[in-house]
């Protein structure tokens, strides 16, 4: 039996051939090394994301999240729900807190769920994968399966918004959370604590609707990583990863910069440290190749 089991909520972007499919690949490899069993919530649906607010409204957004809770409660009783996507985690946890705090909302939500023959009774904890790693394993525990050091690579730990605010990781500050740096150091990498855009917003969904405004954010995030001497950015959020990696070429085109900064997930670093191949770590999913990490993976 696996050491730990969780009800897994991968989210839309982590599906096969979606924008964060390499996040899922590396998460699976990382969890194998840690002897964690992730069981997908049966027939899970989209969390509605933050940007769903405009058309979605309050109750429909909460109701679709409650559908996932009801499925987890019924089919994976007693297991914590674990999300890898920052927006999934936030959407789900926010919904759960609203439901926990209001009997009226709970009643209305269950009225909606009943339309599909479902019921949510208020169980099921909602957690982010990073919380699981830090709280259930701890830095020392995470180090145990380590086979290779990430020595010689300088990382800018870009935490971003939604894994940090409004919930964040217990014991960390909103303005300068240190867990990502500590994770980098745990695996032998150099964490650049002088990186000053650690919690800056990448623009989120406005990368689509307001490209100029969000590309200004992204430029700051990447530029500051260069200023701090970084060779790679590491992040826990799939939208941060996509926005900060994908738009570098656009910014180069429009503003004459020469950005070429790889943007990785913590799970990719960990997979490599646990002895996984570049493929296990989903490194073939980078638009900007992380050559130094590929080299360690190939050793």
């Amino acid at each position, binding site marked *: 039996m696996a050491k730990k089991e969780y009800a897994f909520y991968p989210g*839309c*972007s982590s*599906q*096969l*051939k*979606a*924008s*964060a*499919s*390499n996040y899922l690949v590396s998460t699976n490899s990382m969890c194998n090394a840690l002897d964690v069993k992730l069981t997908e919530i049966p*027939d*899970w*649906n*989209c969390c*509605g*994301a*933050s*940007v*769903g*607010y*405009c*058309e979605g*409204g*309050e*109750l*429909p957004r909460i*109701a*679709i999240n409650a*559908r996932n809770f009801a499925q987890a409660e019924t089919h994976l009783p007693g297991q914590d729900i674990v999300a890898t996507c920052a927006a999934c985690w936030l959407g789900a946890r926010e919904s759960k807190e609203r439901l926990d705090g209001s009997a009226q909302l709970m009643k*209305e*939500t269950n*009225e*909606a769920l009943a*339309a*599909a*023959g*479902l019921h949510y009774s208020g169980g099921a904890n909602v957690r982010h994968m990073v919380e699981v790693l830090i709280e259930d394993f701890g830095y020392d525990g995470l180090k145990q399966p380590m086979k290779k050091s990430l020595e010689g690579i300088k990382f800018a730990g870009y935490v971003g*918004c*939604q894994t940090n*605010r*409004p919930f964040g990781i217990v014991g960390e500050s*909103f303005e300068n959370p240190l867990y990502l740096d500590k994770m980098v150091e745990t695996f032998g990498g150099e964490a650049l604590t002088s990186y000053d855009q650690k919690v*800056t*917003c990448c*623009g*989120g*969904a*406005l990368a*689509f*609707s*307001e490209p100029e*405004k969000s590309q200004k*954010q992204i430029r700051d995030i990447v530029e500051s990583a260069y200023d701090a001497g970084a060779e790679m950015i590491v992040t826990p959020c799939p939208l941060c990863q996509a926005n900060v990696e*994908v*738009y570098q*070429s656009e910014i180069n085109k429009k503003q004459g910069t020469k950005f070429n900064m790889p943007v990785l997930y913590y799970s990719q670093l960990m997979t490599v440290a646990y002895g996984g191949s570049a493929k296990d770590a989903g490194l*073939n*999913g*980078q*638009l900007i190749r992380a050559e130094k990490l590929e080299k360690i993976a190939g050793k």
Partner: protein
Amino acid sequence: MTTANQSAIERYRNNFLKEVEANVEEGHMVKMCMQCGVCAGSCPLGNAWEHSPQKIFMMIRAGKRDEVLGSDSMFMCTSCYNCIVRCPRQLPITHIMHGLANYAHRLNLAPKGQPTRDFATLFWNNAIKKGRVNELTLTLRHYFRGGLVSGIKEALGMQSIGLGLFLAKRLNPMEIFGGHGVKDLKGFHAIIAKAKEIEDRKKGFTA
């Protein structure tokens, strides 16, 4: 036929604060604002807002209904939650901005063609169509929102990124034929329909 907007004006007369408290997500917290301005200074898109959240809260109390609900300000919210964690009075500012935008959108007072209003609507409709987001059709519909010619231009501009994502197996052209979705789509849609029915009744969107 009275529209939802007309009945709201009728019902709340000159008390816009009361209307917001009753109908906007977390609207009951608006009166807690003490006008310190930390939210305005903390917003990553602060410069892009015609009215900062601080200003919007005061405008609500001053009864500036048309100016607030017709503003594109709330659509500048990136949902970064910086204002929420910094607010000394713990107002859920992000949620109130979302709630105001939703209310203005549903009453059809939000600015027409506002890009984030349109994208946000597109996103939700895309996500609930099959229960999971179809990134390909979401992107294409967004690019082609202004018609064929501008769509082709915009899509061509992003061509190299699209190709890169495809080669990295992070974009699937086959999603045009459907893509991922939930199995119990009927149940999923029934839940949303019921939730919407309850919310619309409560907030007066169904006159």
